Structures are given as structure tokens and as C-alpha cells.
């Protein structure tokens, strides 16, 4: 089926079978490889994108439900790493292998948009759906707090 939606601000039309998850459309049709495949069952959140600003698991979203929607991927957050969350992630040196971090960053950015100065409890609640196999969790907490200060000074 043909579906038209916005990806990182640009209108896009794809023609794939209706049950194709958004994840695989992003990765293999639109060549946006930043959104990662980890489990395919909505358990790890490596595939997190923002749909109309809300973090969602791209592996659980059939393309048929995307008509007219607006999706932001890690590539759309900023391509030069200038978004405060990306900056904070680099300053704190969060990544080990790095595979889960795009998904983590998409949820963190959505959290900060809603709660500019989240508490540790807010962070634990919002970020708990994300798996980091390298367990960079202490730095994820730290980087979100750091990003909150970058947002303020801008």
C-alpha cells in the first residue's frame, strides 16, 4: 500500500505491504539506519522514534497507521549533534557499544520537552523501557540532568 507521512519534516511516500513495521521502512526503504532493531517485540526500545512528539517503538507500528503522521528519528533530532541531549550524551561520554543510544536519546529528548528539569524518579520512570546491554544507566541519568542545564542556558 502507498502511505504518505512526514519524516524529519519532509513529506515521504512509500509503497510497501501494509503490515510492514515503521522500523523496517525507516531502515531499509528510507535508509535511515539510526533507528535500531533489537528485539522486534517492543521490549528493548532500541527502535524508539518520536511520533508527533511522543516516543514510540517503531517495531510495533505498522506502516498502515502512519498516513498523515509525523515521525522524528535520531537523524532528525540534529544531524550535527547540536541538540542538547546529543551534546550531553557526548560530554558525559555515555555510550559503550552505542547501539541502544539513539533510542535512549529520542525518549530523553521527549522527556525534557515535557519536563524541563526531571527528577531521578521521572528519569527512571520514563527511561525504564529502554535496555542498554552495556548498562550505561548511571551515565544516562547524569546526561539527562546535564541536558536539562543545556536547555536552560540556550
Amino acid at each position, binding site marked *: 500500500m502507498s502511505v504518505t507521512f512526514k519524516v524529519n519534516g519532509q513529506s515521504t511516500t512509500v509503497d510497501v505491504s501494509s503490515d510492514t513495521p515503521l522500523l523496517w521502512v525507516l531502515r531499509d526503504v528510507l535508509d535511515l*539506519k539510526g533507528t535500531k532493531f533489537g528485539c522486534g517485540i517492543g521490549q528493548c526500545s532500541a527502535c524508539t522514534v518520536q511520533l508527533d512528539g511522543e516516543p514510540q517503538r517503531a517495531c510495533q507500528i505498522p506502516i498502515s497507521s502512519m498516513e498523515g503522521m509525523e515521525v522524528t528519528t535520531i537523524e532528525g533530532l540534529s*544531524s550535527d549533534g547540536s541538540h542538547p541531549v*546529543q551534546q550531553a550524551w*557526548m560530554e558525559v561520554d555515555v555510550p559503550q557499544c552505542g*547501539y541502544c543510544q539513539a533510542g535512549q536519546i529520542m525518549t530523553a529528548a521527549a522527556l525534557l520537552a515535557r519536563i524541563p528539569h526531571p527528577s531521578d524518579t521521572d528519569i*527512571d520512570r520514563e527511561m525504564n523501557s529502554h535496555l542498554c546491554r552495556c548498562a550505561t544507566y548511571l*551515565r544516562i541519568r547524569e546526561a539527562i540532568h546535564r541536558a536539562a542545564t543545556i536547555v536552560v542556558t540556550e
Partner: protein
Amino acid sequence: MATTISGLDRREFLRVTTLAGGGVLFGAYSASPVSAGVLEGSEPAADFALNVFIRITPDDLVTIISKNPEIGQGIKTSLPMIVAEELDVAWRNVRVEQAPLDTERFTAQSAGGSYATPRNYDAMRRTGAAARHMLVAAAAAMWGVPASALTTVSGVVLHGASGRRATYGELADRAAAMTPPDLANVPLKDPKDFKIVGTRVSGVDNLGIVTGKPMFGIDVTLPGMKYAVFGKCPVFGGKVLSANLDELVAEPGVQHAFIVPGGDNLAGLLGGVAIVADSWWQANKARRKLRVEWAEGAHANDSSVGFAARAARLSKSEPEVASTQDGDPDAALAGAAKIVEAEYSYPFIAHASLEPQNCTAHFHDGQLDIWAPTQSPERGRDMIASTLGIDADAITVRITRSGGAFGRRGNTDYMVEAAAIAKEVGAPVKLVWSREDDMQHDFYRPAGFHYLKGGLDGDGKVVAWKNHFVTFGTGGRPDHGAASMRATEFPARFVSNYELGTSFIPYNIPTGYLRAPRSNGLAFVMQSFIDELAHSAGIDPLELRYDILSAYKAAEGSEGRGRILDPARMRDVLQLVANRSAWGKVELPRGTGRGIAFHFSHRGYFAEVVEASVSNSGVVSVNKVWVAGDVGSQIVNLSGAENQVQGAVLDGIAQTLGQEVTIDRGRVVQSNFHDFPLLRLKQAPPEIEVHFLKTGAAPTGLGEPALPPVVPALCNAIFAATGKRIRTLPLSNHDLRWT
């Protein structure tokens, strides 16, 4: 092209080459013994291995080639830091490039065993220093001044007396004409003058990671590429008798469906059905319709329950192999004031790297191109060559970043699968495993069973220790080191009457190395049992550990020195972690306890304290962890080092809390993260204090040795909190409720 070679009569030498487009290339080679006849000025022969590789261009950029695979251990950042330090350049001007597999030029292009730092630290320093030496010599020649009158700072050579300065980029061409120094004797910096090594440096790939650049194996895309899935028999090594291939090729987008016969080597190419489609989703969707008649083989009734029963039976007989015997343990036990007996076991566990196994392959014109996230590119190439009959020289392996590995990607089954499929198809093919494939076709941390007997004298000294270790293996020996226990493993040489015997369960489960192999199970057993002995003797668990460490006696004759822990180094980290955590000085509420443990592995000394709480309903939470580690005289990248240690600690906590792979009917029960739980953010304590004790020893690796102690430290904390002794893992199998 000017080429200068020095030190031909030595094991290592520097080769310097001017680049056609301007700039200079420094290469440090290790020469194998047969290379002694190579003449100056000739091209390096295949038996010279290039190990360090620096390119300096007129724009003052310094490019350092990273030969080792980056799997999240941070090696792509830390090894170049060492080169840059001695070269004396600004880190912001350094670029790092990943090298492809090149066995003619590099040695030891692999990741594992926490080897990279100890293997490369000295060579990296010497090469950086030698390159700096030549740049200084070039400036000295240009200005007609002695080299001793020159200094360097951040990639600039300075002549203080005249105020003249020249950047490395400006000097690069001239440097190639200088005589290289002797690598063995080139002066090195005093570590107290280090500006890069020992600081906190953010990972060189972080910008790419946070902006979603395609860096991982799964991100590889080639023109005309097809996507493959590969369905193997759930019973390991089972063969395909028949499959509904005609139905599969009728599915949307499917281009090919075929049977790969496969062999019997569980680490190699196994039988299965390949489905190749225009997109991965189409291939994976078609797979739901796959119907296979399997020949499951002789192991379709194996189970974890059966293995445990077999271990229990074996424990009642004498060990098959007498591994170690010091003193007379039976006599010592007979004379002991107290005897403590316990059975410990730990399960199979999976690696579960977040990037599923994948590999991209293109077979064309007799050549095979491979892109793979791998710890063992050479092993992968050689396995492909021998399995598919392709000359190794016709195989190119490009090493991508790995989305985690933890030992899993030392096995190269997925590489040979992709190659076999691509050879059949002709077009470029990317094979991507599903999470279920990954969970059910891993090389699991081998389970293990330990039957222990310890004896204490009237003063609470440990006078006897017997361990009957039941592990897995065929023909009375383990298949690999991860299923073994060394004769010299702790507490050998620390208990005067000590016996280790080993028995083996035959099996058909692929097992292998998982982060801190061997140690990740053994530390749990040894350090938990010491805790039991301490409580039985009424001695503080820390004090008993000091006692045991002070009881070291070297065995007569040679026994592979270096494998046995140095009691002094261990005592120092134990003391440090006890001090930092105020061990024994903190009043804790009911349901909260602290545990302590130490372990020596991968040349690293680690002691850790865990504080944990157990709720009335039996839920375990870790409040804080204190870590003290000694990995020698120098931490290379403090940021990466702390990240590794904290990650290893949390990895160990995850294993302890709930990770278990169970076998039933010859196959793995677990399939995804819902039944093989990784740690989540809420389970991570707010703080893990990491303290490095710098000692005179040479710097060693950090990927692994911080993991093992946390497992027993957590279990010992649970005992302190609840009085319940944990002798089997994971904790999720225990009822920890209390009132």
C-alpha cells in the same frame, strides 16, 4: 616514495614513508624470526606485521589506524590516546580510522581476553615517541640546531632560543628523510607529564552514535543488496530433511529459498533454510510459513534438569580427573573443628548483545567481500575459507563497529552463514538474525556444579578445602577454557590441604566465552563459600579473606607463574574497598545487608562491596556498590575505564538477579528479553563508586575483571540481609520473602 627502515636486527622497527598527496606515514612493525634477511630499502615482506600506524598530513591532522575491533570496550579511543600522548599532539587533531582485517600487516586483530591494553600499551608509546623524535630531527636539520635545543607541544616543534616554530604537518615531508630511532630505546615521557593518557576522553565515535550514523554491521547497505534470514534446527546441529521451499518462494518479495546442508561442528555452518527477499521484513515474514522436517539427532531429549541430575550422580563418585592435590585434605577434614559442606551451581546464560548477529556478504568474480561486527575477523575468514572452499586471499573482511559482543562475536557462525548464502545467491546479501535466533543459537556461558567441603580449625583458620567440580565436556575434558577450572585457580596455594577434582557431562550445547569467562561462575562459588566459612567460624568475612590471603604458599617447582594472584595486590584492593565502604562500621536496618568479595582475572585485581535490600515480598534492590581495582600503573582513559567497570558491575548484577538459559528437549526455552531479562534503569543503583589503585605493575585491561566479584558480593549481601544463603543462580528462582 622515500622509505627508511631502522632496527632490522631487532624484533621491532619503524618504517617511514612519504605520502603521494603530502604527509608522512609512520608504521611500527614486529618482525618474525624469518625476516632477518630483509634488506634495508626493500618493501616489507609478508612476515612483517604492522601494529601501529600513524599518518600526519600537511593540514596537521594526525590519523591513527585502529586495528582492533571496537565492541563497546572503548579500544578505538584508548589505544590511539597512548600514541597521541607520546607523539605529543592535541587530541582534537587526532582522527581514528578502523582498519580492515589484514593478516599480512597486523598481528592479533581481535577483541577479547582484556588483552588489547597489555599487548599494545608499550608498542603504542614507543611508536608515538619515535615519530615525535623524527619530527624533531626534521626541524633540527631544517634550522641547523641540535635536536636537544627543541621541544614539542601539541603538534608543534619549538626552538625556544630563536622563537622558531613548525607544525608537525609542515615537517611531515622532511621527517620521512630522517633516520628512525631504535624503537627499543627511544626516550619515553615521564608518566607524570601525560596530558592525554589518564584523562577523561569522550569516545571517538560518539558523534556518529548520537546522530544515528550507519556504523554497525546491521547498517551496511550495498547496491542491489538482498536480505536473508536463516532458520536452523532448534536442537543444535539438527539437519533439514525437507522444507516447503516452493511455498516460501511464492511469498511476496522472496527471491530465493534453499536448504543449506551444514555440518556437525556446532561452531561452524549448521544446517538450515535460507530465505532471501527484497527486504528483511519480507524474508522474516515468509519465515513464519516455513515448515521443516528436521532430523534432530541424538540430543533431542537433553535438558537442564537432566544435566543437574547427572551432576548430582557424578558428585557421589570420585572425580574423573584429579586436577590439584595439596597436602592431605581428607586427614585435615578429619581433624577439623568444623566442617562446612555446600553444593553450588550456576546456569547457562546468553550474551544477548543488543545488535543481533548479522553479516553482509558479496560473492563476485571468485572474490568474497564480508562486512561483519566481529571480535574475530581472522577466525571468520578462515572458517569461511575452509567451509566454502574459497581461498583466504580471496576474502576481504571489513570490521564494523559491534553493537555489543561480550565474547559472543568471537564465534563466527553468522559470518559463514552469510557467506554460504551469498555464494548461492550471487547478489550482495545481508543476513540479519532475529532476536529469537540470537537467544536460541548462542554460545552460552557453560553451566557448572561445585560440590564443596571446607574444614576450619578451632581458631577459625581454613585448614581444608575440597571441590568436586562438575562441568561439561566430551572425552573427559572441557571443549574450551570457559568450561574449565585451572589447577591453580584460587584458593589453590592459599589453603594448605586443597583438592580440586573435575568430572564432565557430555552435551550438545554450543558454549563459549562470556565476559570474564570461567571467572564469572567461579568467583560466585569461591567467594560465597568463603562467606559461609566465615559465618560458620564466627569471623568477619573481610577478616577471613585477609587470613586466607596471608596463607599463600608457592607450590614447589613451576606452575605457570602469573596465573596465581599476588596476595599483596589483592589485599590492598580489599583494604581499599573496605575503607571506602566503611565496612563493618555501618548500622543497617533489617532486610538490608552488605556483602564483600574479591576476584583476580585477566590480570586485574578487584574487590567489591554491595549493599542490597530485600523487601518483605522478596524483591532485591541494590543500593550501592563500591569497587576497588588494580590494573597496574596507568588508567589510559579514565572515562572509558569507569564506564567499563560500572557496566561490568551492572552486567554481573543482571546475571545474578534473573538470567538463566534453560534447556528442554535439546533446545533453549528462552527466546527474547521478556524471558531473558537484561538489567533496566530502575534496577541500577544510584551510585557505583570506582576506585583505581595505581601500582607499579604494567597497565592491563578492563573489559572483564570487574565483573566476577559483584556476583558473590550481592549474594553475600542477601545473606547478610535475610540469612538466606544463595547457592544457585539466578536469584529469581529463590523465595526471598521475610517477615
